[in-house]
């Protein structure tokens, strides 16, 4: 019996202690009529050896590609120590640290996490993780509306990640919040001050600013922030934490800084792994801390005056406040926050800065090489962090498929989201991409765009990489 330790004599003794004849008798309160169906589609059990073989076969089918896709999830080097320690049983198999005295390990890590995130974003406080970047934005919108206590409109520019906008809509729509789109400037991709000004006086609870925005383009965050504040609206920043090693932290945007900062934590130590588990983070000004969703760890002292850590402000949360809670979130992404803490500690401020700078430089190199190909051009002319939108003279789907056949994932096809921009792909090169890989990409782009055949024709499926 996999994972069940009971021997026959244990079972006998236990049934006797309970005073029943069989285990089945313990289910006597379930109405017989409901107990008919057996599991039919579930296979018989596997041994660990069998499932190991099976999973390896599955993994091998997926192989390995040289990846130039970003669009919200980024390939970074993760120090080996991160997951060797994060998967230690004591972190891996513990619950949410409700019993603080028995959970000081997790609690202190989360307190350190909060400190690091608050400092990275330049904010006063941070929580101990939300689900992911997209749902964190939805939570931030709800929080802004709660905090604003008046308006229920939120300005959500069109250059915010399209999926983030959809998720936010799915989550906040039932609470009668109005999400108002803002067009981006045609040739620069950023949200022009003139555009937001069309909403002057429109009683908005918040303005969302993604920096860099979905196109990788840098926004004029100071002006936008100051405008929003002048309107009495909160500023919700959506940021990439790695970029913050180089970019002005939201806490310093404009005269008084953003009010709520959220983002996808994945670039801090979470492997790409088909989209999860990642984690969302949220930081805010002290004034809004009681409106924050999610767990928060505080430092306090024990009965002997010794410093220790505990979950605090639980009165915001569903298990205390129930229908009046700031959110329904309960299980969050704790282990990813632990991994992120390890990741940041291992990189340090200098390491994170070098990583960010190398991403930036590699992306520039990539864009230069690709746009040297006739038929490939940049869509926007403003500075970017580590990705950029390119317009292709051929259908993006075909080009990407051609690259895939060479073991290259050439970027994210953006055409579906912004058809008005033509055939576009969003390309990214992080610090993990080498000069040879970038050259090789450009070479194949050149060939594909000019509709030259491979000579001899061949399609390599990249060898699976372990």
């Amino acid at each position, binding site marked *: 019996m996999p994972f069940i330790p009971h021997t026959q004599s244990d079972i006998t003794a236990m049934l006797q202690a309970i005073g029943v004849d069989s285990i089945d008798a313990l289910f006597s309160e379930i109405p017989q009529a409901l107990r008919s169906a057996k599991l039919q589609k579930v296979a018989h059990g596997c041994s660990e050896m069998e499932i190991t073989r099976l999973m390896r076969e599955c993994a091998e089918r997926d*192989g390995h590609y040289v990846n130039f896709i970003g669009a919200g999830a980024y390939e970074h080097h993760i120090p080996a120590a991160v997951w060797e320690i994060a998967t230690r049983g004591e972190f891996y198999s513990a619950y949410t640290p409700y019993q603080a005295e028995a959970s000081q390990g*997790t609690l202190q890590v989360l307190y350190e996490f909060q400190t690091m995130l608050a*400092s990275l974003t330049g904010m006063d406080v941070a929580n101990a993780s939300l689900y*992911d970047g997209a749902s964190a934005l939805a939570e931030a919108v709800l929080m802004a509306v709660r905090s604003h206590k008046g308006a229920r409109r939120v300005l959500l520019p069109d250059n915010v990640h399209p999926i983030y906008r959809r998720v936010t809509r799915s989550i906040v729509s039932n609470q009668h919040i109005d999400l108002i789109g803002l067009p981006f400037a045609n040739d620069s991709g950023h949200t022009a001050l003139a555009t937001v000004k069309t909403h002057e006086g429109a009683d908005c609870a918040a303005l969302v600013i993604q920096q860099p925005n979905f196109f990788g383009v840098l926004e004029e965050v100071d002006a936008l922030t100051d405008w929003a504040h002048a309107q009495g609206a909160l500023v919700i920043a959506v940021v990439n934490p790695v970029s913050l090693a180089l970019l002005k*932290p939201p806490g310093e945007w404009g005269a008084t800084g953003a009010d709520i900062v959220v983002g996808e934590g994945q670039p801090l130590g979470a*492997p790409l792994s088909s989209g999860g588990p990642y984690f969302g983070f949220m930081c805010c000004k002290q004034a809004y801390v009681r409106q924050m969703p999610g767990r928060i760890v505080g430092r306090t002292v024990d*009965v002997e005056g010794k410093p220790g850590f505990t979950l605090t402000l639980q009165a915001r949360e569903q298990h205390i406040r129930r229908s009046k809670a700031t959110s329904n979130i309960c299980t969050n*992404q704790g282990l990813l926050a632990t991994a992120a803490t390890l990741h940041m500690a291992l990189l340090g401020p200098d390491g994170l800065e070098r990583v960010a700078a190398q991403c930036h*430089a590699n992306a520039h190199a990539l864009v230069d090489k690709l746009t040297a190909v006739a038929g490939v051009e940049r869509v926007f002319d403003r500075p970017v962090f580590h990705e950029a939108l390119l317009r292709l003279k051929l259908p993006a789907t075909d080009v990407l498929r051609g690259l895939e056949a060479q073991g290259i994932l050439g970027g994210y096809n953006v055409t579906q989201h912004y058809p008005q921009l033509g055939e576009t792909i969003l390309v990214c090169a992080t610090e993990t991409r080498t000069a040879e890989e970038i050259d090789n990409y450009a070479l194949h782009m050149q060939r594909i765009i000019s509709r030259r055949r491979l000579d001899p024709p061949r399609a390599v499926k990249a060898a699976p990489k372990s």
Partner: protein
Amino acid sequence: MLIFELSQPGRRNSSQAPRDRADVSAIPPQLRRRERPLLPEVSELQAVRHYTRLSQQNFSIDTQFYPLGSCTMKYNPRACNRLAMLPQFLGRHPYAPESTGQGFLACMYELQEILKDVTGMAAVSLTPLAGAQGEFTGVAMIRAYHDSQGDAQRSEILVPDAAHGTNPATATMCGYSVREIPTDADGDVDLAALRSAVGPQTAGLMLTNPSTLGVFERHIAEIAQVVHDVGGLLYYDGANLNAILGKVKPGDMGFDVIHINLHKTYSTPHGGGGPGAGPVGANEKLRPFLPVPIVSKEGEEFRLLTEQSLPQSIGRLSAFMGNAGVLLRAYVYARILGREGMERVAEFSTLNANYMAAQLAKAGFELAYPNRRASHEFIVTLKKLKDKTGVNAMDVAKRLLDKGYHAPTTYFPLLVPECFLIEPTETESKEELDGFIAAMVEIAEEARTQSEKVTGAPHTTPVRRLDDVRAARSLDLVWRAGASAA
């Protein structure tokens, strides 16, 4: 000692970052960061040592019995971790084409099929990232369904008073008001109260079964009838599915939409607060509203269905396809168990709970529902102990830590005074249960004879009882150089 206190300006792990500092002059100065963030500057050894030592300060399944009710703290098989961390799985970008993820998607598709069978639902979406997000999904689907019927008057979600806090919180997030239904003396929903509560305003009922009181709701069929009769829908909170896996299916009980906490029933790790996964299942009626993406199989190929093919979908709840790595772990676990193994989970988790309940009752502890069979968990109320000795449930919980056991869930559900919700899970041995029972007996004795030992507990943990009031009153949420807690 905090990691920041180990930091020294200029210390760095040069092997963990690019050798050179690349040129960033293309970024306009006014958009650049001026001061470095407060990240620790420590060596790799310092970081490894610091976090290894911190880890040792945790209780965890791997080190202690952890009978936290409603949380299903069962053994997290190491194979699940190992196999979900295969390099190809870890390396795949979520936007990589489906053609490059057929192995992964095959696992996801099969997991959907397994969960459909287990829950008796017509379709499953794996995307919700935890139980509460599953609840949100389900209730949003209920709303979408009513909307699709042009039925705009339904404004209320019913929840039993014993419900988990996420249920009412979810209803609110979906724009519903919440009406609580009382529980009868035996722990079942008060049917009369339910009947008088339902009406045309009823959007639906959220129910956990077995309930958070550790008993199976015997009138589930009538309850379903009552709610359905007024046009409401039934939401199943699957947090306690462990108790009935392979024994009875939520679909057969009459539920329209459900979630499953894979981090409970399917043994993915809790990770000190997540990640989890809360897949949602729906019957034919609610199926069109499931969130995307969903994995479909076309011929021998696996594809992700999106908004295009599911126009009535409530949409998306996260940027990608859910907590993929958690789903892989659950899949491996499900395959190792197989169908017989799943039934055994229900059987032995129930056996363990009923055994502990019987033994604790014999030892003089008071069961909240002495006339009921325990499900996979059960409630002890320590009210009498408190009345006699002044020792409350929290004291006993803390004293258990000294004895090497994690405490059960305390003070939940709220309606039972001095409540201990105890869930041993099927992976614990009789010896471990007996040890815990003996510790409870010892503590009860201590409460009578030397109560300060209990009220002053814990004594052996890295810190002693913490001042929660101070924590909330003088908030210290981030470290600042120079500041200190003590």
